[in-house]
């Protein structure tokens, strides 16, 4: 039962990783690519690590996997936000079919 549940979580995680990477190829713009690839952190890799926790239970390896999940959930949005801010400040244009750019309006004020 434990092994089957762990396999289920790992398969969900790998599917989210795969769809995130397809988005990384397919999307037309750097900001859209960033949005697609951030999804596969919180649901993809954290799903795989949740599978590790279910497989090992409350042993040393399982608790370390749980700590790694908490660390990823705290740090990955920070990294993505810093990357988006740095990209916008370095002067990369948006896609030409994008409709609004609030950050540029805020910086003009």
């Amino acid at each position, binding site marked *: 039962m434990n092994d089957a549940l*762990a*396999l289920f979580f*790992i*398969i969900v*995680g*790998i599917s989210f*990783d*795969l769809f*995130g*990477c*397809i988005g*990384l*190829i397919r999307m037309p713009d*750097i900001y859209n*690519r*960033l949005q697609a*690839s951030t999804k*596969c*952190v919180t649901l*993809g*890799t954290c799903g*795989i*690590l949740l*599978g*590790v926790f279910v*497989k*090992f239970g409350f*042993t*040393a*390896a399982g608790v*370390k*996997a749980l*700590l*790694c999940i908490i*660390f*990823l959930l705290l*740090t*990955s949005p*920070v*990294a*993505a936000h*810093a*990357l988006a*801010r*740095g*990209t916008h*400040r*370095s002067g*990369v244009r948006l896609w030409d079919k994008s409709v609004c750019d609030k950050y540029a309006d805020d910086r003009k004020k």
Partner: protein
Amino acid sequence: MKFLRWLIGFIILTGLIIGIFLFLKVNIATRLMLYLLICFLFSMFRIFKGPTPADRSVATDMVGILVIGFCGIMAVYTGKDWYVDIAIAWALQSFIGVLALAKFLEGKNFDE
């Protein structure tokens, strides 16, 4: 022409995914790792092709995240717990590396 390119990409992608699932007679761990290998190939494509440096930074971040998942799968299917230690260390250094890349993109010095 655009539709033809879209169709070729779609056929190759679904062929890879369904082909690994149906026609390859290997065990389940190897199959999962082959799916992760496809993800690595996509990220490597974005690193080589990406028009701006920011694209390459995003793809590099993605490779770091995928390595963490790879370590998790290795820990489950070999039974050794030190792979989770490698995952934690890799998460830490990937976070710091991405922050440094973002500062570098912004065009400032590191002490600001």
